[in-house]
């Protein structure tokens, strides 16, 4: 093959990214649940033979990008290279080996060139239903949370394991959708394999070893250079969040140590594991830590594993950020999404122009299950997003997914797929934290049940008591709220809606950046004119 010079590397790298992007489009088009085809809750990656990330799809979810290569490495640990053969498909939704909760299936396909294992295609996707209680925060152990798939070959040498699929169908409320979405993932994995083999043939590559070493080496060096520019030191940040009860908020603590060309995260001091499903397995904690550093230090370079090598993470066992089985973990994003904010808070002192004030995240969600007039059960997941935090130089964007990357489901689609009536969905004026740069606005939704039979609903809702803090003198964002029929609802509990009951969902605003005194007059006037800020309230 030609030497791996700057040109060849770039060309091949682009080709690998194109392969996983193509796989992502196949998932959108062929999947059955709105989670994949409207909300984008999936990712596709290519790793080398050792499970080192080579390429991820462009619109993917930061958490999955971090966890999928680890799932490939767990696959190697479990089966060994010799235990894998062409045509195998491996599946797991084990939270500690996969993405942090049972609702996502991670699917790994070894890629062979002839008889030689050269790479892995891996995809993760949020299932419409995985059985158990409807994604309830009330679950106390993982056994309540649904069907648990250990690392398992669901295809052996190209032959599907019918027993597995039959078991799966029996365990879930939406057998066609769940099985259909797994097939959509498998199709995507096949597609990545096909494109990689075409590429290796075209460029005369026997394997991807040199390529991976070179690409990951370059990103590792770039990340080490970037870290070296951060002053050495120990940076602490602590934040209180909603907790399960108002009188007992959770503590999130981070000690971030920058030394030469390495960064170490230590989450010692974070609250202990809880008997509710908001515990965040370490794989997810790690993914969110790495994501924060990439955003702050090296946003423009395509991601791969080399980037992560200078970053190490520890969290004490049996804390919120490192629970062990059988902890319940279904809503781990409600905890894990705080991690990047901790990192930014710690780095704000030394990198004021590279970090963001806290966002109105973690992700919000409303999961519902009910029975249609025709007697068919249904389950539906709606995502809602708060405002971004402000950065030095830019107001936060309003109502946008971060640090995930999920779309809202259109109101028209939501009303078509479930017996709901949205009275409004609008921006929340004044919800963005004040500052030289204002936090992004949250959004308000009022949703009424039109169902003759009761609908079970659960929520993921954060920052309803502890607001997204501002940075550098910026104000906090407005807290969010969940109300049922005008009364504040316990957002950690399952509720039942009767026909005519109304849920109010108000997502939190992002924190502001810099002193409000320093805000540009023109921006103040524009905010008033557009109604992002209402003068009479302030």
């Amino acid at each position, binding site marked *: 093959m030609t030497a791996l010079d*700057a*040109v060849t590397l*770039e*060309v091949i790298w*682009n*080709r690998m990214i194109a392969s996983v992007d*193509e796989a992502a*489009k*196949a998932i*959108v088009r*062929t*999947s*059955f*649940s*709105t989670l*994949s*085809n*409207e909300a984008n809750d999936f990712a596709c990656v290519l790793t080398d033979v050792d499970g080192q990330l080579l390429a991820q799809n462009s*619109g*993917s979810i930061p958490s999955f990008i971090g966890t999928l290569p680890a799932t490939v490495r767990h696959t190697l640990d479990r089966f060994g290279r010799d235990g894998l053969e062409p045509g195998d498909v491996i599946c797991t939704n084990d939270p500690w080996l996969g993405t942090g909760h049972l609702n996502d299936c991670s699917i790994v396909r070894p890629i062979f060139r002839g008889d030689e294992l050269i790479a892995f295609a891996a995809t993760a996707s949020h299932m419409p239903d995985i059985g158990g209680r409807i994604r309830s925060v009330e679950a106390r152990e993982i056994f309540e949370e649904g069907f648990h798939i250990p690392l398992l070959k669901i295809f052996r040498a190209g032959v599907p394991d019918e027993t597995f699929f039959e078991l799966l169908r029996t365990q879930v409320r939406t057998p*066609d959708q769940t099985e*259909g979405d797994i097939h959509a993932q498998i*199709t995507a994995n096949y597609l990545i394999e096909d*494109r990689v083999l075409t590429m290796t043939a075209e460029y005369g590559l026997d394997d991807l070893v040199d390529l991976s070493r070179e690409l990951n080496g*370059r990103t590792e060096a*770039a990340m080490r250079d970037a870290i070296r520019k951060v002053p050495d030191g120990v940076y602490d940040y602590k934040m209180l969040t909603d907790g399960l009860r108002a009188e007992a908020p959770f503590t999130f603590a981070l000690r971030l140590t920058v030394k030469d060309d390495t960064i170490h995260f230590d989450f010692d001091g974070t609250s202990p594991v809880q008997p509710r499903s908001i515990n965040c397995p370490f794989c997810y904690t790690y993914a969110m830590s790495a994501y924060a550093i990439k*955003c702050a230090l090296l*946003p*423009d*370079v395509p*991601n791969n594993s080399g980037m992560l090598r200078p970053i190490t993470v520890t969290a004490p066992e049996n804390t919120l950020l490192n629970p062990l089985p059988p902890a319940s973990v279904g809503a781990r994003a409600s905890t894990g999404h705080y991690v990047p904010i901790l990192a930014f808070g710690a780095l704000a002192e030394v990198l004021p122009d590279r*970090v*963001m004030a806290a966002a109105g995240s973690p992700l919000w969600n409303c999961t519902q299950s009910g029975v249609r007039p025709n007697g068919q059960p249904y389950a539906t997941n709606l*995502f809602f*997003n708060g405002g*971004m*935090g402000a*950065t030095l130089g830019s107001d936060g*964007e*309003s*109502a*946008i*997914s*971060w640090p995930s*990357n*999920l779309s*809202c489901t*259109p*109101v*028209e*689609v939501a009303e*078509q797929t479930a017996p709901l*009536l949205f009275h409004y*969905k*609008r*921006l929340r004026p004044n919800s963005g934290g004040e500052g030289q740069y204002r936090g992004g606005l949250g*959004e308000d939704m009022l949703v009424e049940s039109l169902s003759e039979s009761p609908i079970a609903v659960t929520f993921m809702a954060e920052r309803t008591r502890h607001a997204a803090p501002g940075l550098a003198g910026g104000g906090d964002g407005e807290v969010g709220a969940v109300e049922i029929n005008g009364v504040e609802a316990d957002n950690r509990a399952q509720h039942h809606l009767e026909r005519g009951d109304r849920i109010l969902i108000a997502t939190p605003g992002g924190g502001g950046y810099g002193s409000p005194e320093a805000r540009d007059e023109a921006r103040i006037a524009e905010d008033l004119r*557009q*109604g*992002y800020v209402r003068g009479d309230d302030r």
Partner: protein
Amino acid sequence: MNRYAMGIDIGGTFTDVVLYDREQGRRLTRKALTTPGDPAEAVLDAVDQVLADDAIAPEEIERVVHATTLFTNALIEHKGARTALLTTEGFRDSLEIGRERKYDLYDLAAKKPQPLVPRDLRFEAVERILADGSIHRALDGEALAEVAEALRQADVSSLAIVFLHSYRNDSHERAAGARMAELLPDLAISMSSDVAPEIREFERASTTVANAYVKPLARDYLDALGERLGQREITAPLLLMLSSGGLTHVGEVRRSPVQMLESGPAAGALAAADIGRAEGLDHVLAFDMGGTTAKLCLIDGEEPAIAYRFEAARERRFAEGSGLPVRISTVELIEIGAGGGSIARLDALGLLKAGPDSAGSVPGPVAYGRGGIAPTVTDADFALGYLAAEGFAGGAIEVDLPGCHGALEKLASQAGLDEEKIAWGVHDLVNENMASAALVHIAEKGRDPRAYTLVATGGAGPVHAYYMARKLGIKRIVCPRNAGVASALGLLLAPARVDRTAAFAAALDETDWSELEDAFQELEAAARQVIADTGMDAGQAKVQRLADMRNVGQGFELVVNLPDGPYTAASRDSLLQAYAQAYQAHFTRLPPNVPTAIAAIRVRLTAPVEKSAEDLSKGSVSAAAEKGQRPVYFPEAGGMVTTAILDRSAMAIGDSFVGPAVVEEAESTMVIGPGAKFHISDNGNLIIDLPEDAS
């Protein structure tokens, strides 16, 4: 009478006028610099010239066909009308909230595409229709007087009306539109149920607002153009090219100008399709590369594929998601930020990048000597010997070769490579970017690139076609004459075409077949009326029925060509079969045991125009074709080799050659690698067959 057909294509820089003389098979072309302030001015300048120079009687012009990028540019530059939006109460922010996703994962300050209507011009009406089309709350027409007053005070000239579920029941939108027209007679009004009657409120609003935003501009411009053509006694009907490649009359575009956004690229795709037909090709990959972008379009069978969604005015480096979603019928093409002006540089990792930033025409490539300092793709093409300094762009530009080499050498030393290697790297990389995008696109269609013939057009297309084709495994390239003005020629080839769509939601097994048949006939009647209004024979029109179908539960539909009507309950199996075939072609396999549903229906009417005679250049003597030699870079040859330079105009039908070679004509240059065989076909096209071992 009926001797001439005229094509007018307004681009960002040039306005092209092409006149086709049917009697003598001549093509008469004129270029004028586009006049953005009054676009009709450049058109009339060019028209006046071409009429005067060739003493053409205006009444001999039988039709005038027009494409333009004016409306797209208005969106990109935010230079449209002052536009307001009227929504269902509670939903005026849908346009701004969008789909809540980031197109860049790591950029903390990334913004959603800025809505064309700011929040203070977004108003709400009391009304509500439910997902099943039933009225939940009646429209309060009286309250609209207040909105009208606010619009008047804000000096708004165009209004978009987007109510929830109006794709199921348009009565409230229509009533509100009528009331607003009464209150403000001069207001341009666009209703979402009319412009884009499809589910998903954000995308429908985005499309309707884009339409409203360009509507006054379209109205004024088209009126001015029609009037001034009339003053020249050109009385032939003015037909306009739609993004779908079809033709329609001025009234249709005045109503819905958003349909014209991609008219220029559509014309280029039609030209490629026509070339493919002439050469008997079943699978054509149309490749048009200019100064800032390249467009690629698949043509399977006789016509370009049609898509029903695209993104206009992408703000960030053509990144998917950074533009405004527009739901219209459009020739399905991909646009890549890769052109002659694309800038080459090293990124933070020391890796080479080419584009999507472009030097444009000002300052332009370093070689243009107009102040450009960053090396571009065009500079690399000069350094590789693909382009000649002498006579470049008809001698209009004095090429600064030393400057061009200097800029490339600087980049080369940063990368630790020599100049030749970096120049080839830039050329190869831009080809790879285009090939990668093409591969994703072709794969989405479930096709194999090796089955395609590349048709290369545009200023830079023929320069890059050869090595891009190799990356795609394509074995044959066709380069037409006048490759540089292919789009304007394409205008003269289009059939009149009308697309209509309507929501129709039903599982196939629960379909009321007479209701479905009625819905199709209603669409067909509306489409026929448009064809008749263009002055063409609606009776000759070909009807194609289509439907957006999916497996129940899937979130996206596939647009499926359906068998001809009329439909009855007995049609179920043939519709199901049409769906199964289309699905398998896209995604290889159908999911097991899932029922099939229709989400929307579409009708496409086409009425062919009379085909003009081909103007074949009568080739002279092939011996004269070689006009010189120069060193040209070919990677297979290991570097620069002395290469024959051929004069396209001196190549005769049937002449055949073997590469390496460079074939030059006034507007473009075709680069051909070693071992490739090429000849001039019976249709006058240059056909290049790549050597077997090329991969």
